């Protein structure tokens, strides 16, 4: 073996973690800046010359934000809308993906094509149309409108991921279950769903994050301050009239934490989900 190969083998146990630290910091540094900004008074955030560390430390920001009723209302909206739209997507996408993967029927390809096309429609491009629809339905400023929009625009991705999964499971497995006396729905629930769990996890997480972070539609539809989700609401911490950068960033960190925890919990499934679903 050549000399560089041997030295690499020796240095590898500590070299890789060091590179890992650098990679991790490359992705975290803006959010570390944000964390530092949450721990200093707002005036200190916007002072020239800038300083990386707070000149004055302020520890009360998170308490202020969590004690702010507006913030709690936005948090409630975000949770409600994200959970509800994710639930709808899963309930609606599973039968559609299963049927297109398992059955042959007239219109199957047409349906899959429509799904593919809607993947390219963004709520941002359609926001004028979305507003007009919900205006005519008298649903502007309701949670329902936001939930339906988030569900509908994330449906395509979920169907595609799950379609890939259901297609990859051998049909014999299902037939065996049916021979053992499972009905079609029992088969779906007891055999297929456990096998598609990584795909379900992937679809769930994608929908949840997209709904949690959706901005333009919520900005347009939700007029009541208390009904806004976090993404829209927290912007009122820094406006032309009041500038509470510390609170904006404190609230932002609180908004990020649940998503990162969700990710950390399901990360291993997520990788499997992307493999089988979108990468054959």
């Amino acid at each position, binding site marked *: 073996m050549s000399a560089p190969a041997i030295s690499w083998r020796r240095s590898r146990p500590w070299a890789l973690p060091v590179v890992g630290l650098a990679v991790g910091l490359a992705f975290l540094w803006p959010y570390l800046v944000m964390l530092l900004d949450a721990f200093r008074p707002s005036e200190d955030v916007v002072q020239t010359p800038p300083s990386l560390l707070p000149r004055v430390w302020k520890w009360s920001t998170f308490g202020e934000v969590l004690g702010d009723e507006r913030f709690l209302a936005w948090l409630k909206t975000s949770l409600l809308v994200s959970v509800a739209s994710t639930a709808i997507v899963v309930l609606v996408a599973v039968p559609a993906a299963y049927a*297109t993967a398992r059955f*042959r029927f007239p219109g199957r390809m047409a349906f899959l094509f429509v799904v593919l096309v809607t993947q390219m429609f963004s709520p941002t491009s359609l*926001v004028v149309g979305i507003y007009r629809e919900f205006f005519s339905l008298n649903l502007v400023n309701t949670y329902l409108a936001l939930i339906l929009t988030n569900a509908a625009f994330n449906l395509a991705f979920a169907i595609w991921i799950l379609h890939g999964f259901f297609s990859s499971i*051998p049909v014999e497995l299902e037939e065996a279950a049916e021979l053992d006396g499972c009905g079609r729905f029992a088969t779906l629930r007891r055999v297929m769903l456990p096998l598609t769990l990584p795909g379900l996890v992937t679809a769930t997480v994608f929908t949840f994050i997209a709904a949690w972070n959706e901005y333009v539609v919520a900005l347009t539809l939700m007029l009541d301050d208390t009904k806004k989700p976090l993404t829209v609401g927290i912007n009122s911490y820094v406006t032309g009239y009041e500038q509470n950068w510390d609170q904006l960033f404190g609230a932002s960190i609180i908004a990020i934490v649940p998503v990162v925890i969700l990710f950390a919990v399901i990360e291993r499934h997520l990788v499997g989900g992307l493999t089988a679903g979108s990468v054959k």
Partner: protein
Amino acid sequence: MTGATGKPAAPVGARPRGRRRATVRGRGAISPLAALVWLAPALLLIVGVVLWPAVELVRASRSRYSITGLRKGPAGWDNFRNVLANDSLGTVLTNTVIWVIAVVALTIAISLGVAQFLTKDFWGRRFVRWAVIVPWAASLVITARLFTLIYSYYYGSINAVLLDLHLITTPIDFLGSDKLIMPSMIAVGVFVSIPFTAYVFVAGLGAIPTEVHEAARIDGGSPWQIWRHITLPLLRPAILVASVMNMIYVFNSFPIVYTLNESNPGFSHDTTITFMYKLAFKSAEKDVGQSAAAGLFNVVIILVAVLVYLRVTRWRDQEEQ
């Protein structure tokens, strides 16, 4: 679009190969009505909340609106003509092309390296994977607002660090300079797109059997040769998925360009998405009709771009393999 289920499908079952597949991988034919039971909820959502707004958008694009958003009557094709005649349209389209191509290309290139690294086995890998996830978990609005501050001429931390290290003597105006704003926005676009892309590649790398690499190593391939001639071709499906998804996301991306560019007047650094939004809510005209027309152009542009991309990369061939 309920007619979609009534339309005859491609005669998949008629081809001998298709029939074999149907018995191996599918459950055979069912009637459209039975299929509708499974598809109805999805169709309802798609028709009710995606296609209906699309139709509303078409109607809005053919109507005239007052500055307060009240419909004043039909406009024929005036809104489309006005959008096409807008002096800034050329700039906006050029910006969009630069924005999408630069962000997607850089994202794919960097994510390939990041993913390769994340599949290595080392102490602390889980923490690095969690860290990579953070820009994806943070909402784009938050990240965009954060970067307006980080880039800031007066109080930005990038300038603070560069000044402290004596690399520059006067602060850099990242967001106010015509030359620097696009690269600055692209950097943020790439930064937030890497996590998703890297994860698709991690999944793709995980799907490559380890024997393939071992065989290549025994045959004496250098690491670079192995990567270039074995890993990269086997990653092709993942690269296609990632590039298509990124094209759609980046093209439709609103908060980064809108927020970082907020202090600049006019449309000189806008993409077609922020251009459309500003037409309705920020421009002097506040014209909902023109904005709707621009929105339709956007839908068509991304549709055509993705279809052309799929055709050029022969997506179908890949699926058949």
